[in-house]
């Protein structure tokens, strides 16, 4: 019972490259979220999804693209990576009881050189 998984856990890429971070959950939770965590900024919401084929922007969506064709997957794509996108990215799901009662994945540490 893995719950929520993210892959890869670590990624180094070059400026301008496209990168996709994967998130998979086994609970069938309807809501899924992508956050980035940076020193001094805490967690910032990038995108979220209320259900399959429904996505919406969060606080810092520029430079990112998401899709949700299946309930269990919520990939995050950086179309043309920039150094400012070096960060730790967390995927989370919502149990449905309350928006803030979320379950987080282990994170992906992305470095853009």
């Amino acid at each position: 019972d893995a719950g929520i998984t993210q892959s890869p856990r670590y990624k180094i890429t070059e400026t301008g490259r496209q990168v996709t971070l994967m998130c998979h959950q086994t609970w069938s939770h309807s809501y899924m979220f992508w956050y980035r965590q940076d020193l001094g900024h805490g967690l910032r919401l990038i995108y979220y999804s209320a259900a399959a084929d429904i996505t919406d922007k969060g606080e810092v969506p520029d430079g990112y693209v998401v899709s949700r064709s299946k309930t269990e997957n919520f990939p995050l794509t950086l179309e043309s990576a920039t150094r400012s996108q070096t960060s730790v990215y967390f995927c989370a799901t919502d149990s449905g009881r309350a928006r803030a009662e979320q379950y987080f994945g282990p994170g992906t540490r992305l470095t853009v050189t």
Partner: protein
Amino acid sequence: AQSVTQLDSHVSVSEGTPVLLRCNYSSSYSPSLFWYVQHPNKGLQLLLKYTSAATLVKGINGFEAEFKKSETSFHLTKPSAHMSDAAEYFCVVSLRDDKIIFGKGTRLHILP
């Protein structure tokens, strides 16, 4: 405007002594409040939550928090710190429109 403020970015306590992590919120109504913990290189884990029932909320690992409306506070406490409590702690506010606001975090250091 709705907001959440964690008053200390770092807190250091000796093992076996009490822990106090402070959180204040700003809201025009009683929000739902949460504390999360993040251990190094891990995702966030829910510690406890307040959703307008009892004002004193007990969580996992001996932590508890008290909702004080008059002070707009939701401070996290533990009577006796353990080395395994060393982590970063986030206070989170959930608003009526389902918007969530994360505090900037407080890093707890436990001294031997």
